[in-house]
């Protein structure tokens, strides 16, 4: 077997993973004027690492102001501005941060995700790290916490494990350690190093990542037990061996960000290595059709699943569908066709490569779809025989918990992982070779902007921080497992209807 540059073993241990840039974007700016005399009071005062004077140096370095928590530390005795005897420090809002993101992925959500990815700990309270500013969806949902959690509940006893095979058939009973896993991103759309980071964090957390539709890179093989092979409508790079090697095979019927549209990889992004992986010709634009040309009905769908089940008799079958008006029927159809996982992909997700007009206008919002499917499956008496995974705009652990409380078993995350790797949501992913952060690219030079170890650690930290937040939330709700949260809509409130609740 070939050897690979990175070690196959991955630790779940949190280690600092600082940003790749000297001057990372933060919410605040700290300006040090020429009045500074390098007395070092600021270095002694600040607990957040904004001010650094390396051992043996005289000068205090230029502030790492992205770490600054802003005016919150005023009057606490740890404020550098107050501490400076010369009045040389000035705090201001960083106008750059305000230019990032959008109402769904607000600057605060981006910054808090970066903070979690760097430290593996909860982001500071100076950031709104739970909700965005979309004015709807998860942003208007809140948990109702009891006044105090039940006595005797210990955080370390809270289970976040999620079983994926509930059919009780002969296929493996796979259980993952946290109730989310990484979504499909194709080789071709995304830097292989980022993809490897995703695969490695999947291994570390006993979870999964997914190939997307661009084929199965050989470098994934050491993580094969944690890689889902996706069979999408273009069937690019799908081979029997990649199906046979996967513990889970995912059928991508549709994507919530663009139902009714297939993927489209522009010719520029189809580099020789991408073309080889997809068994195509470099430079040729590649489109995935919508839908599967061999599947126009539920019995075709069953046949389609039977096909993969025949090729790999041990794989679990997952069907990724968007959320049309009859999503409940689709859900039941997935179950009766033999699916183990129903993956509902709502409309809030999608990287920059999904057209805006589609992202904003087509699919049903995921929070509606989850509840509808959950109740319908319950009425059918099959809710406990299929795993429902929600995706499409799961940005935070709070979003994940809300999706579960609405009736999902777990979540798939996509954009959040890319943000952890430094994505600034400029939403120009499709241009491919131009990703400023070296993430959504196959350009040889841009690939160098990140490395696998760093990606891995950032994601390990993110997962650790998410798990921590989820456990904390379950603790406050008085629940001893994430499965106990499923369908507990009574624990949620919607700000728009707060009075009615």
């Amino acid at each position, binding site marked *: 077997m070939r050897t690979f540059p990175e070690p196959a073993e991955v630790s779940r241990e949190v280690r600092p993973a600082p940003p790749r840039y000297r001057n990372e974007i933060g919410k605040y700016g700290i300006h040090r004027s020429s009045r500074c005399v390098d007395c070092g009071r600021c270095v002694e005062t600040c607990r957040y690492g904004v001010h650094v004077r390396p051992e043996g140096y005289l000068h205090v370095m230029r502030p790492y102001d992205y770490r600054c928590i802003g005016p919150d530390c005023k009057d606490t005795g740890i404020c550098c501005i107050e501490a400076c005897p010369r009045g040389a420090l000035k705090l201001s809002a960083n106008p750059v941060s305000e230019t990032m993101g959008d109402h769904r992925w607000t600057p605060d959500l981006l910054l808090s995700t970066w903070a979690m990815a760097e430290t593996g700990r909860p982001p500071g309270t100076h950031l709104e790290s739970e909700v965005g500013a979309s004015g709807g969806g998860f942003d208007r949902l809140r948990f109702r916490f009891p006044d105090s959690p039940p006595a005797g509940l210990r955080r370390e006893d809270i289970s976040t494990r999620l079983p994926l095979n509930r059919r009780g058939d002969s296929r493996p009973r796979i259980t993952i350690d946290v109730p989310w896993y990484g979504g499909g991103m194709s080789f071709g759309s995304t830097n292989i190093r980022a993809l490897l980071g995703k695969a490695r964090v999947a291994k570390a957390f006993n979870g999964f990542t997914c190939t997307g539709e661009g084929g199965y890179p050989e470098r994934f093989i050491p993580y094969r037990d944690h890689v889902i092979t996706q069979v999408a*409508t*273009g*069937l*690019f790079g*799908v*081979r*029997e*061996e990649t*199906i*046979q090697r996967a513990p889970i095979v995912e059928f991508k019927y549709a994507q919530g960000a663009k139902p009714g549209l297939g993927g489209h990889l522009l010719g520029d992004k189809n580099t020789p290595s991408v073309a080889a992986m*997809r*068994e*195509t*010709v470099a430079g*040729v*634009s*590649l*489109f*995935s*059709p919508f839908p599967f*040309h*061999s599947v*126009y*009905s*539920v*019995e*075709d*769908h*069953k*046949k389609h699943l*039977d*096909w993969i*089940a*025949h*090729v*790999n*008799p041990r794989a679990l079958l997952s069907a990724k569908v968007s959320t049309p*008006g*009859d999503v409940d*029927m*689709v859900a*039941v*159809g997935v*179950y*009766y066709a033999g699916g183990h996982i129903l993956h509902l992909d709502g409309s809030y997700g999608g990287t920059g490569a999904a057209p805006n007009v589609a992202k904003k206008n087509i699919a049903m919002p995921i929070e509606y779809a989850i509840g509808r499917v959950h109740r319908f499956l319950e*009425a*059918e*008496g*099959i809710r406990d025989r299929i795993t429902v995974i929600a995706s499409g705009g799961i940005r935070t652990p709070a979003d994940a918990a809300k999706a579960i409380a609405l009736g999902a078993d777990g979540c798939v995350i996509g954009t959040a992982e890319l943000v952890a790797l430094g994505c600034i949501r400029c939403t120009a992913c499709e241009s491919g070779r131009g990703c400023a952060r070296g993430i959504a690219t196959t350009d040889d030079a841009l690939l160098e902007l990140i490395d696998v170890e760093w990606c891995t650690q950032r994601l390990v930290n993110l997962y650790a921080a998410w798990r921590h937040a989820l456990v904390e939330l379950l603790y406050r709700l008085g629940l001893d497992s994430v499965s106990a949260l499923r369908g507990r809509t009574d624990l949620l409130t919607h700000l728009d209807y707060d009075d009615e609740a």
Partner: protein
Amino acid sequence: MKREGAGIREIDAGRVRALLRSRAHLAPTAMDGLVPGRAGMPTGLLSRPPEAEGGCGVTGFACTIPVGGKHIYEPSIQMRNRGNGKGGGIAACGLVPEDLGVSRRVLEEDYILQVALLDPGARGEVEAAFIEPYFDIDHGGLIPTVDDFRDVPLLDVRPPDVARYFVRLKPSVLSRFAEEKKLGAAGLSEREVEDEFVFQNSIALNNRYYASLGDKRAFVLSHARNLIILKIVGFAEAAVQYYRMPDTRAHVWIAHQRFPTKGRVWHPGGAHPFIGMNEALVHNGDFANYHSVSEYLAARDIYPQFLTDTEVSVLLFDLWNRVYRYPMEYIIEALAPTTELDFDRLPAEKQRIYRQIQAAHIHASPDGPWFFIIARSLAETGEFQLMGITDTAMLRPQVFALQEGEVSIGLICSEKQAIDATLASLSGEDPRFTPVADLYWNARGGSHADGGAFLLTVSPADGHGWPSAGTGRDAHGNTVPADGHGWPSAGTGRDAHGNTVPAGGHGWPSAGTGRDAHGNTVPAEGPYRLRVANKFGKAVSTVPDQRHCDLSAPPVAPPRADEDTAAIERCAREGDSNGFFAHLMTRLPVMDFDALRWFVDRWADRTAAEAPAVGVEALTLCMDRRYPTGDKKRSSLLAILRGGLERIFERQPLCDGERTGTHVRVTWETRDRLRGPRPGETTLLIDARGFPPEGGECDAELAVKAYRAGWRRLVHYNTRGTRFHGVGLGPGTAALRIDCYDNPGDYLGSGMDGLEIRVHGNAQDQLCQISKRGKLVVYGDVGQTFLYGAKGGEAYVLGNAAGRPMINAVGSPRVVINGTALDFLAESFMAGSPHDGGGFAVVNGLQYDLHGRLLPLELPYPGGNLLSLASGGAIYIRDPHRTLVDEQLNGGAYRPLSAADWRLILPYLEENERLFGIRIDRDLLTVDGSLRPPQAVYRKVVPRKDAEAESEMEGQGE
């Protein structure tokens, strides 16, 4: 049949208005007033069918003799995997009076009102409210069932009791209704008024006891003349069993396996078929525009009650048929509009009419994948009809088949294997049927050629221009009694009303058939004729002077048998399968069927023990090749050759025994004792009988095990739609060869990476998806989405590919299709340049006619969207008369064939010649009798950007 050919201007607006107005009270809101305390149907229900379902399995056949329900049983079982056991149903049309315990007059004149009693206690109420006040009941009662539904396999929900009434409307009710509703004044005949009353009465009954209730108590299954529907929660064949219909005979049968996505189903209201007036419809697919269709119907005071898109389909059909009185062609046009290039190819007058039809009814045209099979009782003419209609985009699978002879049968199914299962079942009981159809074909949806629809009409032989010999009249005005085994020598009778009385007995009059001097059966004039025509009325038929073989007669040695014996001996000894084929070709014109059977049997006996490889190879060659068969039907010839193969197969040692040989056989019973090959053993024969069509126990799965155990030549035979042959074997299978006989199913060869698969006959859908390397040879047609997403490999197809072959293929797949493709050939093809290792398709546009002659098709490629939206690859089409036009392209361009192109495709055409005997000089490059250079025969289609680049290169060269 004066309506045939009627123009739109002949529509009687007064009639339409009167009929539609007469239904105003049927609106659910209006019904509120009629039935106190009843909530109207919430309008929200119009938004989508709550009984959502996707596709299903549909099957049907129409036959010149009535045959028992057990024959719809086999094809239904074959298509179980297209349903989920939560809904199945059958319809039978053209029944036999004594099977139903009524007289022929009653059968033909009365309406057969069948009510499903979900609540058995509802019967009295239903009769009192909806039957006794209006109808004279000639016969009525609960239909028989088996005692305990649990005795029927796979039946989990007790089917409803069904009350059947043979009724006529009371004359007083009829005249009152005609007057009140002003139907008589609108020019409707009494029978038409009576039809309308029956129709409306059923709607009202359903509203009272089904549609408007929380607890559903009863609904009308059917109310047609000489047509009945039964449906259950379960598989379709269980309906035949439960209602004890295996021996109930009918000319036309249809069945439906449903796949409702709603799991908890306790009654069969949503199952198919659905009744219109005198037609039953089954449907595979679903609509995207249920709402729009429902609104269209609501505007005409028609409201769905069972809330499935199948129901609205039959309501549309009935509306256009009985209210608007459209000829069938226009109904089909309204359902599946002709568009794009096909529209342009219609005659101007048709375009004018079709444009009006589309303008008027496009909102009701079902949008989405669908395929309908409709059984109709044309009670006024005594005809029975079966029709299949596919949507314009051909998104559901469909196969038509025809067998003509002493008895004739036309079949329509979702999968070819179901057709063959029907024929196997029939031929097992009656030697006048042959297990192979004479003709199999696909419809091209919404096309100018066939309109995507075929009508199979069973007509009484007399009164329609058919020879009247052998028919007569029954002076008693009653059924001519069957004498147990045949029909009185009169053949058919006519009752007092002048209606034809068709055959009733099991057998056939001995006087009518006979054997000629050579011992072959000769056809007799039967009382019924089958005619098949497409949407435009163009007939489909087989060669009239060819005959079937009676396989039940003993084989007879021919004169000069010693010559044949010597040839057999020599070919067997020398392993000369080509010699065997050559000998057969010289002897075929002079041999009769019985001699041929003797010859094939001798060959099988001679080779079975000592040289099975050459035995199989020779017979296979004779089956695979096309050649003139003279007065013999090719279907019979195939049955004989296939019988010879079976004779060889069944003598090969089983895998669990001591005996060994080059060929070893494994069966369902011995599958657990499958082992690797012993020294000298080369070939594993897998007898697919008994294996399920998919899943861990299917024969394709066994093949994977066999391959892993070391077998490198596998033969699947007696396949009946087993899926996934050649799938799951993993990468690097170049050493493996698989041969499939009979009916291998969908997905064959998908993912293949090196192996060679030969399909000896027609193949089904989704072949060679994502195939990477290897070779596929199909000695027949292939179905939908052939080579979808393929990366490479070679494929040779003797016949046609259905819709969307090579769609989304990339890399280097190379294909020769000797027939054509229906539509969307190589859409989104993303292969590399063919001259740089990339993929291409060669389309020869040829077909063998029923005489075995190779002829060019009228158009080498009739469809649109040729190489549409492709970014790479090429298509080479044999088009010597330059029939392809720019309108068939979408992003592609035509280019002349270059010398380099010819060098590229020549080796593939040479292999094509070796495989199929289609010669490059004689068959491909000869046009109208003279040999032409390749560039005058073939044209190339490439993506436009490649064409531009090519032009530039040429410009630079000059």
